[in-house]
């Protein structure tokens, strides 16, 4: 019973947190760019406005895929925050991503088609690092359960600095931020227009935006796990990471998919793999 209540609480609260985070992002970005910028609640206004717009559907599967994307994204968070298995959460996250890609593929527009292809490449790029993160957490906390990792008094960050850096590196890919906003960026000033989501409109686009808020919350939750020995430090670290992401977003040009792919694998191998290997030998030896 408690778990069900928690899940409902999460499903309602996570988009609010994610939306406010998006608002903070926009306010901070404006500040960094020396603009006045929008109010904090602007993302909510945008999404509400999107719900009022007419929804154009180019393909009848498109809607279904988008719904699946949103549901799995919400479920992922629910698994995660209700103390479920983080491995399961991560796989559900991947599945949610796959549904969005399928939705983009189904629309037949060249922009979303290319966006979907690039998103697949990005997924290939970041997935090893995500898995390595999970493995690292298991090695430190001896469990895949979120509850046990969060409750563990060991400062995970001290055991996994390399993994954390690698995770930071792939974070912009997941948050769709420069330098890795290759498949779809927050603003449509890109050669792919809006890439993946080019062909979604109205309420479907609003739902995808909400799913993105879930994703943001979840990813910052993962960052928190690294610092879970002290909740205050954890929350500060999550916000710090988010700020760093915004700063990087405003300081780097968009890279191309080749470099995104090779660099992400290189970093996963060197930082992530190296860190785990050292951990293994120390623990084993």
């Amino acid at each position, binding site marked *: 019973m408690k778990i069900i209540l928690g899940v409902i609480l999460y499903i309602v609260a996570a988009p609010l947190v994610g939306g406010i985070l998006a608002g903070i992002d926009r306010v901070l970005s404006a500040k960094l760019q020396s603009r006045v910028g929008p109010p904090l609640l602007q993302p909510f206004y945008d999404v509400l406005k999107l719900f009022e717009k007419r929804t154009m559907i180019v393909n009848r599967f498109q809607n279904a895929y988008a719904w699946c994307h949103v549901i799995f994204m919400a479920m992922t968070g629910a698994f995660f925050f209700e103390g479920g298995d983080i491995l399961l959460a991560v796989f559900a996250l991947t599945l949610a991503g796959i549904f969005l890609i399928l939705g983009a593929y189904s629309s037949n527009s060249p922009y979303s088609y290319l966006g979907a292809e690039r998103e697949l490449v990005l997924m290939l790029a970041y997935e090893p690092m995500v898995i390595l993160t999970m493995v690292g957490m298991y090695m430190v906390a001896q469990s895949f359960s979120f509850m046990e990792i969060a409750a563990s008094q060991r400062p995970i960050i001290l055991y996994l600095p390399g993994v954390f850096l690698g995770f930071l590196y792939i974070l912009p890919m997941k948050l769709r931020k420069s330098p890795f906003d290759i498949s779809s960026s927050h603003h449509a000033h890109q050669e792919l227009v809006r890439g993946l989501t080019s062909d979604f409109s109205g309420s479907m686009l609003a739902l995808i935006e909400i799913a993105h808020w879930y994703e943001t919350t979840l990813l910052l939750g993962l960052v928190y796990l690294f610092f879970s020995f002290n909740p205050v430090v954890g929350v500060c670290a999550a916000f710090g990471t988010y700020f760093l992401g915004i700063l990087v977003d*405003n300081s780097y040009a968009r890279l191309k998919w080749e470099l995104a792919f090779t660099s992400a694998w290189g970093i996963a191998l060197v930082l992530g793999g190296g860190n785990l290997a050292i951990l293994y030998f120390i623990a084993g030896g």
Partner: protein
Amino acid sequence: MGKQTIIPFGPQHPVLPEPLHLDLVLEDERIVDAIPSIGYVHRGLELLVSKKEYAEYVYVAERICGICSFMHGLGYCQAVEEIMEIQVPERALFLRTIWAELSRIHSHLMWFGLAADAFGLENLFMLSWRLRESVLDIIEETSGGRVIFGACKIGGVRRDISPETLRDMCQKLEKLKGHMDRLTGVFLNDRSVGYRLKGIGVLTREDAQRLGAVGPLLRASGVDMDMRRLGYAAYERLSFEPVTENDGDCYARCAVRARELYQSIDLIAQAVSMMPDGEVDTKVLGAPKGECFMRLEQPRGEVLYYVRADGTRYIERFRVRTPTFTNIPSMIHCLKGCDFSDVPNVILTIDPCISCIER
């Protein structure tokens, strides 16, 4: 060989907010061909010339394009003056030079912003447009308009700039140089920017000449050609060397424009120091009869005006061959073999001005 896809680029596209249409033929993400088409916002300004008296048409000519507006007005005025053999007062020539260079600075700064936006760096975009704003303020202070100067007229200029304002302007521009160092520093030295610019869209010297490239595009390929050498307005008396780079890629084009910013400020300083006193316009009587080709160096390159007048108050034929139009072959050439992600960069490095094409 992968499957070929055709991607419509424009006429409505967020990267290029101007109605140029390109059909890009892609193999995976590599461009194999680009087919341009234009004419979406054709306004018939060339035809309008036969409906307007020649002296009033200056204001219409200025509106051919918002960014090089002064140049269009100047080119038209010079062509008519050439036909009518009007001697323009010295001071007016220097004022024209100053405004022409201001318009080059503002155009280049705007271009830097758009180029930054094309590779996804909004912050740099904001920086360059912020700098551009200070140039626009100078323009508004001296001519009355922010982008449409309305300062040129046949036989001279419409208003004078007082010596204090000129001195002020020089100081402001000198200060602007410091800010521009930051901007061009990022463009020329930043690693991630360099990754997006270096070796992209290479146009060799031979290709550039063969395809009739003009302006910064040509100079970035190592050809030293600058229409300001013709010595129109006061350029005859100012000393400058055309800026050239040898690599012919997007980075070289950035570098050319970056150095031209400083060159323009330097030219303005020279013009201010040499400026004579006196009248700024002469009375124009009669009507033009004859024909004339007039060439200028716009921020985007060589522009050519052809005016044919038959002795009435109306011009018979007015043609503008804009730099963007003649750079289209080079653009198509550069696009072939590029990645799809480089398309915005390559298109922007020719500095397309579609409203110039669509007279």
